[in-house]
C-alpha cells in the first residue's frame, strides 16, 4: 500500500483550550489510485494532508508511506521522504519568488537529485508553460502559477501526490483545466493522488471519495 493511516489522532492548542481535530482516522491510498478527501472547513482535511507529508506529527496512530512509519522517522528522514516519494501541491502556490519558471519547475527534481531535462521540457509544453520559462512567479496569473506548482511536483516523479485545494485559488474554468491536466498526468505516470477539496464537483472526478466529519471519516 502506498499510503496507510491507522487510527490517527491530532489535537491543537487554541486560545480556548485543546481542540481535537482528528479523532481516529484510518484510510489508505493504493498506487495509481486517486482519492478525494472532502469535508467542511475546519473538518481537518488539511491536517490529514500535512500529517501525511510529515510536515507535522500525529498525537497517536500510525501513518505509513510505502510501508515506512513516518512518525517514527526523524526530521531528516521525513525530509528525505518529501524529497523522494511524495509531491506536494498547495492551495497557495508556494513558488520560490526569486527563481524563474524554469528554475522553479526543475527545483524539486534537482533537490532530490533526479533531474530529467526532456521530462521537464515535456511537462512544460503540456502544462502550457513553454513560453513562460524565463518569467518570475509574480509575473504569472494564478492559473499559470498553479500549473508551475503542479509541474514542479510531477517533474520530480513522486510516487504519491498530496494536493491541498490545488484549484482553490482559481476560477472554475481555469481550475477545471488545471485539474484535467493533473489527472491526466497522474494516470499516465501511475502515481497515487490524495486530493483535499471541499468541492463535491471536483471530488466526483476521482476514483474514490472520503468524507471527513467531526474528525472522523464518515
Amino acid at each position, binding site marked *: 500500500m502506498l499510503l496507510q493511516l491507522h487510527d490517527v489522532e491530532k489535537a491543537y492548542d487554541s486560545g480556548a483550550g485543546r481542540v481535537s481535530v482528528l479523532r481516529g482516522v484510518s484510510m489508505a491510498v493504493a498506487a495509481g489510485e486517486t482519492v478525494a478527501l472532502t469535508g467542511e472547513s475546519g473538518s481537518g482535511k488539511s491536517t490529514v494532508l500535512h500529517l501525511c507529508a510529515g510536515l*507535522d506529527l500525529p498525537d497517536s496512530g500510525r501513518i505509513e508511506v510505502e510501508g515506512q512509519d513516518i512518525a517514527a522517522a526523524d*526530521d531528516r528522514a521525513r*525530509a*528525505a521522504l518529501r524529497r523522494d516519494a511524495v509531491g506536494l501541491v498547495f492551495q497557495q502556490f*508556494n513558488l520560490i519568488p*526569486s527563481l524563474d519558471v524554469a528554475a522553479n519547475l526543475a527545483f524539486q527534481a*534537482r*533537490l532530490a537529485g533526479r533531474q530529467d531535462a526532456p521530462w521537464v521540457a515535456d511537462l512544460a509544453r503540456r502544462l502550457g508553460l513553454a513560453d513562460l520559462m524565463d518569467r518570475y512567479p509574480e509575473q504569472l496569473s494564478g492559473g499559470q502559477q498553479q500549473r508551475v506548482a503542479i509541474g514542479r511536483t510531477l517533474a520530480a516523479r513522486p510516487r504519491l501526490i498530496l494536493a491541498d485545494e490545488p484549484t482553490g485559488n482559481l476560477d472554475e474554468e481555469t481550475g477545471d483545466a488545471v485539474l484535467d491536466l493533473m489527472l491526466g498526468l497522474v494516470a499516465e505516470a501511475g502515481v497515487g493522488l490524495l486530493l483535499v477539496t471541499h468541492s463535491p464537483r471536483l471530488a466526483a472526478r476521482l476514483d474514490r471519495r472520503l468524507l471527513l466529519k467531526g474528525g472522523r471519516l464518515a
Partner: protein
Amino acid sequence: MYRTALSALLSHWRRHPMQLGSLLLGLALATALWSGVQAINAEARASYDRAAGVLAQDRLEQLVPTDGQRFSQEVYVALRRAGWDISPVLEGRWSRAGRSVRILGIEPLSLPAGAAPQPVAAGGDMAAFLSQPGQGFAAPQTVAALDGADGLPPLTAAPDMVPGMVLVDIGIAQGLLRAEGEVSRLLVAPAQPVGRTPLGEVAPGLSLRAPQAEADVANLTGSFHLNLTAFGFLSFAVGLFIVHSAIGLAFEQRRPMFRTLRALGLPLGALVAILAAEVLILALAAGLVGIGLGYGIAAALLPDVAATLRGLYGAALPGSLSLRPEWWLGGLGIAMLGAGVAAAQSLWRLWHLPLLAPAQPRAWARASARALARQGALAGGLAVVAVLAGLFGQGVAGGFVLLGALLLSAALALPGVLALILGAAERASRGALAQWFWADTRQQLPGLSLALMALLLALAANVGVGTMVASFRLTFTGWLDQRLSSEFYVTARNEAEAGRLHDWLEPRSDALLPIWKIEGPVRGRTAEVYGVADHPTYSENWPILTGTPDLWQSLARGEGAIVNEQLWRREGLRLGDSLTLPGGAERALVGVYSDYGNPRGQVIIGVEDLTALYPEVERLRYAIRIDPEKVPDLRRALVDEFGLPADNMIDQASVKRFSLQVFERTFAVTAALNVLTMGVAGFAMFTSLLTLATMRLPQLAPVWALGLTRGRLARLELVRALLLAALTMVLALPVGLVLAWALLSVVNVAAFGWRLPMHVFPADWLWLGALALAAAGLAAAWPALRLARMPPLRLLKVFADER
C-alpha cells in the same frame, strides 16, 4: 541538494540587490572604521614596542635613581666591583641650531645578552663605535632629518631603530649631553653572580625597577589610542545596527521560502547550515571590502595621527602603514563575529519555530511594550553607572566608563522617550488624519529604533567632540596670544655668535629676553627647565593659573620656580612644595601656568638662577620685544648686516600659524572619524526606511483607499522621517553636552594633563541639526518618491493578497 537549496536561497539576494547592498555596505563600513582604527593603533603599538624593546628594557630589570636625577658612573663601577652584572645607560635630548634628537648612550661590552639593539647587533665597527668621534645609529628618516647637523658623530641608517633617536656609545653620549661621568640608569642582567653585596650598601640612592612591558610613551599615549578605539567601536556598533536589521529582515522575508524548501524535503539542519554558511560568505566578502576601506582610512589618517602623537607626546611613528595580520585578521574576525551576532537570533528562531508557522515580517518590526520597558530599565541602570563613574571614577578608564555608559544609556532610552512623546502628541491631536499620523509614527518606531539609536550616538558624539575641539581652539588661541607676546625670535649658531648677536640687538630693540633651557629629570621624568628674565613681558602676559602674588620677584631672586599644569597635576604639587631641579638644587613652587600641547613637564626659574645652576647652558636663543612695524626691517638688517641665516629667525605670526597648524592636525583625526560615523548613521537610517517602506504597504493602502493621494502619503512619510530625526537631535543635544563635559574635565585631564574651560557653540548645533535633517530627508526621499509613483495596482494587490 545543498547546492540547489543554496542557489535558491541566494536567488533572494539577486532579486533584492538593495537589501544585499545595505547588508554588505553596513558590514563593510563597520569593519572599515573598526579595522582602520585598529590598523593605526597596531602601527603605533608596534612603534612603541620597538621603543620599549630597545635595550630589552621590556624584559630586564633596571636600577634607577630614587631622586630621578642622573648619578655618577662611580656608582656603576662600585656596583660592578661589588659583583652586580649591570650595564649603564645615559639618555637625554640633544639640540643645536633648532635640531633636536634623543640620545641613547649604551655600553656595548656590558650589555646583557640579547639586549644589544637590533641595528647594532646586525654589524658595525666596534672600534669606530667606541672611539672618538664615535658612531651613531638612527632610523633612516632620523638620519635624513639630522643631515648636516653639527656636533653629532657620523650617523649610520638602521631601519629597525626607533625614529627620533640616535644610539651611541655612552662615552660619546656623555660628551653630547654634557654629562661627563654621569649615568641615567642601569640595566640588570637576568642571571646575577653569587655573593653580591646588597644594593643598599653599595648604592643607597638606587632602587630596582621591574621590567617595563611598555615604554613611557605607550603609557602616555594609551588614552589617545583608547580614544580612537572608542570611536572605532562606536562606528562598529552603529554598523552592526544596520547588519542586524538587514539580516533580520532577509530572514523574515524568506520565511515562506524556507517553508517551501522544507515542504519539498530539505532537512532543517541542512537549511540552518546553509543559512549560516550564507551569512559567513557575506561576512567574509563584506569583511574583505571593509578591510580594504579600513586600510584606506588608516593610510589617510596616519600622517595626522603621527603628527598628533609627535606633537602631543613626542612619540615617533613611521609615516607609512604596513598590513599587519593582527589588525586585518582582527577586522575579518570582527566582521564574522558581527554578522554572526546579528544572525544568531534569526537562526535560533528558525531552528525552534514550527514548520507551518507563518512569516511575520511586520511582527519583526514590532516591539512589545514589555521590551520597551526592559530596555528603559537597562538605560536607567546604565545612567546610574554613568553618574557613579562621574562621581567616583578615576583617570582615563573612569572617563571612558562614564562616556560608554552615558551613550549606551541614552541610546537605549531613546525609543521609550520617543514613544512617550509620540503618545502624548497622539492624545493631544484632534483631526483623524493627525491622530493616524502620530499613531502610525509610533507604530513605526520599533522598526526605525535601531537606526535612530545609531543616529543619536553619532549626533551626541558630534556635539560632544565638536564642543571639546571648539572649546580647545578658543582657549588655545587665547593662550597663544599670551604665551607668544614677543614679536620676534632669533637663534644664534654658536656661543660666540650669540654674544655678538646680543650686543648687536641690544640697541635695536625694546627688550632682549633670553630663551635658555636645559633638560633633565624632574621628579623622575625628563623635563625642560627654562630661565626667564625679570621683565614685564612675563608678569603682564604669562598665562598663570595659580600662584603667589610676588611669583615673578621670587623667580628673579632665584628662590622660586613655576611649573606647567601637566607637571602640577601629574605630581599633585601644591604651592610652597619644594621642587628638586636636575642637579639637586631645590626651589619652592610659587606658581602654575597653562602649557597646552606640551607632553612633558616644564619648570621656569629666573634666568640668573638658571645660569648659576647650569653654567654650561646653551645661550643661543632670544625673544625680541620691538614695535611690530619694525619687524620686517629688523629681519632684513639681521640677514644683510649681521649675517644671520633667515632660518634662524621667526616672527610671532609664523609661530602662531605653526602652532595652530599642529593643533588642527591634532584634531583632524577626530573630525574625520566623526564625519564617518555620521555617514554610517545616515546610511542606517536610509536602509531602515527603505526596508520599512516595502513592509508598510498594507498599513498605507487602507489610508490610500480611504481617500488620501499617494503624493500626500509620500509627503507625510517624509515629514515623519524629518520629525523623528529632529526629535533625536533634540534628545542628542544634552547627551552631547554631558559628553563634552566628560571629555574636557575628565578624559583630557587624565590624557593630556590639562583642564579646559567649556564653551558652548549653539550655531554649531543648528548646523548639525540641519545636517541630521538633511540626512533623514535624503534617507526618506527615495522611499517616499517610490510611494508617490507607485502604480495603484500594487496598492490594490494588498487587498487581493491573502496575507
